[in-house]
């Protein structure tokens, strides 16, 4: 039920983000979701792409530092309090969220949000036990 995400170290200087997207594009990789965390010096770009391994090797060959992490794609009802309902479930289940970001596409009537948990297995157990939809990797890569 987990989704593979790649993270890239990016120095905070002009053109680097463009370079990443160029490398991915020429490798025939399409970006599905992204988030950028930054400080004044550097940023961490996190991506869900359609072809994770291809993306990783293309970026490495392009001289970037890349790591692969597992995240969870959660279906969130697209209405007021929709996200609250999910976070409340996680809170009650004592699951800690490291970070999260939204997916570009919707899945049926739901928004999709990517969560990074320190304990993804436990998070998935809590979510599914409470009837929250968790999307499989294959599903997400091809959305």
């Amino acid at each position: 039920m987990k989704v593979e995400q790649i993270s890239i170290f990016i120095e905070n200087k002009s053109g680097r983000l463009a370079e990443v997207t160029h490398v991915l594009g020429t490798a025939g990789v399409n970006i599905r979701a992204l988030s950028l965390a930054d400080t004044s010096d550097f940023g961490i770009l996190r991506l869900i792409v359609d072809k994770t391994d291809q993306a990783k090797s293309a970026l490495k060959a392009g001289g970037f530092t890349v790591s692969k992490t597992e995240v969870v794609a959660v279906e969130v009802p697209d209405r007021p309090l929709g996200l609250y309902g999910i976070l409340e479930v996680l809170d009650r289940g004592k699951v800690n969220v490291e970070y999260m970001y939204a997916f570009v596409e919707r899945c049926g009537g739901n928004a999709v949000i990517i969560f990074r948990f320190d304990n993804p297995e436990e998070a998935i157990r809590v979510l599914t036990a409470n009837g929250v939809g968790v999307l499989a990797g294959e599903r997400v890569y091809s959305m």
Partner: protein
Amino acid sequence: MEKAISTMRFYEEQMRIWDPLNECMGREELAMLQFTRLRDTLNRAYRNVPCYQNKFRSLGLVPEDIKGLSDLPLIPFTTKEDLRLNYPYGMFAVPLREVVRIHSSSGTTGKPTVVGYTRHDLNTWSELVARFMTAAGVTEDDIVHIAFGYGLFTGAFGLHYGAERIGASVIPMSSGNTDKQLMIMQDYRSTAVVCTPSYAMTMADRMEKLGIDPASLALKVGLFGAEPWSEEMRREIEQRLGIIATDNYGLSEVMGPGIAGECLHRCGMHIFEDHFIAEIIDPETGEVLPSGATGELVLTSITKEAFPMLRYRTRDITRLDYTPCACGRTHVRMKKTMGRSDDMLIIKGVNVFPTQIEEVLFQVEGCEPHYQLVIEREGTMDTLEVQVEVNEAIFFDEMKKQRAFVDLLEKRLFSALGVGARVKLVEPSSMPRHEGKAKRVIDRRHL
């Protein structure tokens, strides 16, 4: 039992001494030899090199005033500036027809300095290199892979002739083209490698990338020199290349490699005192410091014919240890150089050497040595920025972990240096890779 015997034999073989008569000479006898040779050198230098003659005359000094080794401090220093002013052949003490080889220093700033060797000098040089190579465990059975650049630089030729003197098989690989270096190392079964420590790390990086297991190579020892490096870096090289890493010392102005080298006890480099007299001075005042003090190494060559050096200021910071070494050699040992007095950074009034920073970086798991120091002045305050290239081992997907890593480095640097440094993580390959000496410092304060 059989294993114990073979291990014993291994150590006995490794602990060989190339020239026991001279390397293990009693200290009193050595002092007598040094003085005799110093007197000869002084006379020759005074007679044949106008620069020395002028220096002596301006002090109202003649060679006869030097009546013992204790009078050594009376002799004026020779500096790189003297060599520049006498470029190219002004410091030669023999006519050019007697010079059979010409080398020069790396000449990173301005004109290089030209040095010459007579046939006898080349012979001495080979002998001295053979001494430290033997001390590091190299024998006639070894295949010595020389990855120093051949050319005007003394490193490659010095090691080359020394290894041949021992009877080892020499691969004159020269520097550069790391993939080919590794291929030859694999195919020719090189057992000893000669290069700068930073190039050894570059090779280790490349091996990792190509998936070459160090255990699949025949390498057993590395002879590294030409730049200062830390004990941490030694451990890293030993681990990643699966070898014993040894240090040796030399500078082209005085001879090239072969002035000093480590024995397998690795507790300092034996300075071959039957050919060089070593002193430690305060780099600021020029005053000779007592035994055991840290300061600038000053060397006097006492056997060189073509290019004698009287009290040459090496700019290298080290200290001397006269306590007896377990290997049996009686020659004084110099500690690994901490850096150069002209490389020593004074940041907010605190002396900082690049090697100190390197040590801190190496203590962090997975941290590679690709780093650079940038010093700037904001108003009247100096700032030190340590740029560290990120790699997979020190890249964290979570921002708080990445920040914590930077904080950890900054904290450790502060406690090691006594002055604050800002750590900046940069992308891999941001810094130029070096096949020779690494340039670690960018000082923008004087621009």
